[in-house]
């Protein structure tokens, strides 16, 4: 929220409080217990608190999620974006095209009951209730960079399930080469859909190896709480090395297919948005540079990192591919 022209010593309360809602004593104990149980299964798990430990009031008002495991396989020592910014500055055209629209309009979305349709080349197709879908899995916290194709970025503590765990349970067949995701279509609940700004439903897709990559997360929360509607409740995709528009929100359908799907933004402007949408500072959007970005809350632009800084983990997925062609 703030422009850092003031002295660095001027630390304001808003910089340190909101992030800490889930770092209170009670939660610490819960996490410790959970870590004790889950650590062996997870491998290199370690609790690592940010330096600001002062427990304070939070802007957050959602339902607290319990038993979250903090996954520090991908540690990120960057300041998290404030809860307020993460939940009031959103691209979610189903609720309007201005950044502040989703936070104003998304209250009309009913996230329970919620059914997820699984179909295509998969051994366990069907209509799953969201809670049944999530319950078998442990919730993990992952602090990821989020780089929007519009050249702004955030750092967000997501809570979710590795998509690979979900997919393994659904048992896709060998014909499944891609996963296609769809957002809910409901003009009553999603007033932005009354105008055909883009063709509804919003569609996104991942290649199977991208979907199975350990970084890929199906998020159900942020900042230790259930996802606010404007952030894609009850369940949204998080693919941190790709532009934010790949992170499809309020998912109602996962389809396993053989051919590369046509995702919404590419359908709208194929010369501007690709299927892969990997963050790449060397491939500009035709209308603006992708070499730099503005981290929300910061004044000066910063350099954009290849694969949004996740190159060590994901670059091998694209070996031999011309990333200028497959942007």
């Amino acid at each position, binding site marked *: 929220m703030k422009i850092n022209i003031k002295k660095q010593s001027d630390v304001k309360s*808003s910089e340190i409080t909101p992030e800490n809602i889930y770092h209170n004593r009670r939660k610490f104990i819960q996490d410790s217990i959970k870590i004790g149980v889950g650590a062996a299964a997870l491998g290199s798990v370690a609790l690592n608190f940010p330096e600001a430990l002062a427990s304070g009031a939070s802007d957050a008002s959602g339902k607290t999620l319990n038993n979250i495991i903090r996954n520090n396989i991908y540690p990120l020592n960057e300041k998290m974006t404030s809860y307020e910014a993460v939940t009031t500055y959103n691209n979610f055209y189903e609720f309007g095209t201005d950044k502040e629209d989703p936070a104003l309009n998304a209250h009309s979305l009913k996230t329970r009951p919620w059914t997820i349709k699984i179909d295509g080349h998969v051994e366990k197709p069907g209509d799953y209730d969201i809670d049944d879908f999530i319950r078998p899995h442990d919730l993990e916290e992952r602090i990821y960079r989020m780089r929007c194709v*519009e050249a*702004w970025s955030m750092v967000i503590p997501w809570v979710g399930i590795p998509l690979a765990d979900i997919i393994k349970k659904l048992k896709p067949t060998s014909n499944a080469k891609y996963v296609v995701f769809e957002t809910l279509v409901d003009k009553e609940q999603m007033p932005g859909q009354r105008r055909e700004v883009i063709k509804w439903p919003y569609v996104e897709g991942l290649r199977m190896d991208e979907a199975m990559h350990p970084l890929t997360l199906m998020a159900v929360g942020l900042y230790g709480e259930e996802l606010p509607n404007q952030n894609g409740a009850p369940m949204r995709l998080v693919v941190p090395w790709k532009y934010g528009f790949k992170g499809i929100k309020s998912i109602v359908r996962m389809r396993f297919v053989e051919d590369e799907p046509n995702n919404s933004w590419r359908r709208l402007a194929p010369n501007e948005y690709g299927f892969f949408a990997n963050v790449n500072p060397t491939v500009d959007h035709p209308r603006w540079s992708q070499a730099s970005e503005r981290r929300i809350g910061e004044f000066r632009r910063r350099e954009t990192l290849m694969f949004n800084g996740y190159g060590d983990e994901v670059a091998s997925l694209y070996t031999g591919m011309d990333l200028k062609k497959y942007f």
Partner: protein
Amino acid sequence: MKRIIYLKILVHIVALLPFCWLSWQGYLLMNDQSNELTANPIQFIHHFTGNWAIRFILLGLAITPLRKIFGWNRLIQFRRMIGLYAFFYVTLHLSNFVILDYYFDWAAILKEIIKRPAITFGMVAILLLIPLAITSTKGWIRRLQKNWIKLHKLIYGIGILAVIHNIMMVKADIFMPMIHITLLALLLGYRFAFRERQA
């Protein structure tokens, strides 16, 4: 005569309202209080000042048609200030781009202006607006005489460049730029139709 002065003061106040509101929100932001500038204030300021610049350009272009249709000849006395407010908001728009957005990174700024047609159009529109602002004084009107009218016809081209810039910069929701384009088409269309009748 007195009435005109009061009306001019009123127009000044109305024209400065968006700027005052923006400044107030900026003040709130700097003091870490809740404000309307969103989590990305620089982008917000960019859209806000750009939209108001276009609105004042359109308003300036509306003076002549309104005068002729409704016979409000006194409107002409407000045209210069409307035009100068368009220049004022354009200047804020450009300053935001150069100072807040790119922080005087001239290499990056130049690259964007050259490489992105939308920004090229916007930049040309701004450059063309400068001579119009300079020659808006009574002295220049006298000195240039008939050429003044010719020179100030540039505003038609500036308007076209501005709305093209506007629609090209938008990602998907072209609702607002389409309103701007429609208004401009009506205002320029009126002139075209009127000219034909005279011929």
